[in-house]
């Protein structure tokens, strides 16, 4: 499972990086979204996530280490909110750029051929 997750993270990241290096703003925003998926999974992976680990606190806590590490999850939640916000913002800026510059190129002008 770890390997599959790692490959998943890697593929998301690679696709995302490829896209943010592209010249069109829409490509960049898709790339950033993919990257943020990759990073979110990466953060959870840093908690050495396991399948089926208990999440909620039971009456007797027992061994705390058998629980899924809650901290990375909390961090990811924060990261998700922030990346949601920034995606929205970037979208609007790219729309504004498109409206004012009449192009969807990331530099606000078509490259000279």
């Amino acid at each position, binding site marked *: 499972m770890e390997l599959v997750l790692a490959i998943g993270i890697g593929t998301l990241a690679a696709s995302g990086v490829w896209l*943010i290096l592209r010249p069109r*703003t829409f490509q*960049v925003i898709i790339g*950033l979204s993919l*990257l*943020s998926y990759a*990073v979110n999974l*990466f*953060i959870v*992976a*840093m*908690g*050495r996530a396991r399948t089926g680990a208990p999440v909620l606190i039971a009456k007797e806590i027992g061994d705390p280490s058998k629980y899924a590490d809650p*901290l*990375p999850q909390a*961090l990811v939640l*924060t*990261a998700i909110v*922030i990346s949601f*916000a*920034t995606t929205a*913002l*970037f979208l609007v*800026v*790219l729309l*504004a*750029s498109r409206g*004012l*510059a009449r192009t969807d190129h*990331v*530099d*606000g002008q078509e490259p000279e051929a």
Partner: protein
Amino acid sequence: MSGIADLVIAPVLLPLLAGAGMLLLNGERQRAVVAGLNVAATLALVCIAAVLLAMSDTGTREVYRLGNWPAPFGIVLVLDRLSALMLLLTNVLALASVVFSLARWHRAGAHFHSLFQYLLMGLNGAFLTGDLFNLFVFFELLLAASYGLLLHGSGLTRVKAGLHYIVVNLAASLLFLVGVSLIYGVTGTLNMADLAARVPTVAPESRGLLEAGAGVLAVAFLLKAGMWPLSFWLPTAYAAASPPVASIFAIMTKVGVYIVLRLSLLLFGEGAGASAGFGSDWLLWGGLATIVFGTIGTLASQDTARLGGFSVLVSSGTVLAATGIGQAGVTSGALFYLVSSTLGIGAFFLLVELIERGREPGADVIAVTREAYGDEDEVDEAEGDVGIAIVATMGLLGVAFIGCAVVIAGLPPLSGFIAKFALLAAALNPGDRSGAVPGSGWALLVVLILSGFATLVAMSRAGLRIFWASPDRTVPRVRAIEMGPVMFLLMICVAQTILAGPVIRFMQATAQSLHAPAGYVSDVLQTGARSGRHLEGK
């Protein structure tokens, strides 16, 4: 214990509440109230920061445990000399900027004052927090507010610059997350002090991962600090921003610089075991490269605001290089320099618009806005020009320009000179008297002298062009609340020069404690909870 100690949270809480309160007021119709609230809040922040600075100068660190949770687990705010200094600097700059904006710029778009308060909240939080992930949150907050403020006034130039600024910073934020989580994965903690305690004990096979995390994290910080080659977004963005925004942005790179300074000494100082001194060479050479690049840019800039942007690079490069040298003396000089150059550059960005205003009649900077929006121009021109033109405007502007130039170039008689002297004297005389001048000292000497020279050339060129070389210039209409902030910032530079002794003493104390992080670690980790963990437990 509470009472005065609770003041530590005020720099975060006050802007939060002020900003929220402004949202409940009607931004358009009650603009005066909103603006007054902003000025009042910022003024209060300056006072609070001053009190905090006085508190910190007793040498004790105030550790504020949010939610009353013990240190490595809950988030803590740590007030020491460095954070207090940065707080005061930030809010002083902010005060100048917000007063300046009242003349006309705050009307160039919606929600300026709320965004401004949130920028302050982000900056203050970033300077105070002792938690790595909380730092991320405040970074994001200040960045989000800076996106908004950069785009304030809109227009093609700003939107284009903003697009780059946002993309680059979003990418850097992702790196930040990767770095923080990697460090957490290896060490199991997010608290900076706890991290410092754990770094020496990291298992050898995990050390590579730890340092990789630190490296990635450093890239995120250095991008914000504007280190070459991660700095190309900066001059364009700063030049595009409206003047009060650009002015407060002068502190933004310093957040990156601050955190690099703080963390490199805390985590990778001499007590860091196998990782001691991690990355310091990169900082030194990267910082020097940044100075060189900034200097070249300064010379190559035709646009005055862009010149200011490159000066920002020189400034942060200098502090980064000084951090890379890693001596307490150099650090104290760097701190002195940081304060001086930030104030100078902040004043310069405000001034740029005032002097450019008169240079080409009719080509007001607000034209950037008009170009995009045609008739729907919000800024009420008539009202904007009603302001009384100050007598001897040109003279004042000229004096202010010279003041800024002198501070930025590091020439006498203002604080920039003392700053460079403090930096170089320490860099040339490492610890023992007998010792030869180290290579880093030479490099810093050469680069700083040359960059000072280049700045002088560029500034004189710009000054001549602006003030004297255009015969058809009209005397700009400048209002007192526009000129006042510039003079206010420059007067602080003057005060910093005259009171250089006490100031440098403070900086040295700051640097000493930065270079001896054991005290920080024990202060943070050993602070007890206020009695009774919660108001009322179960």
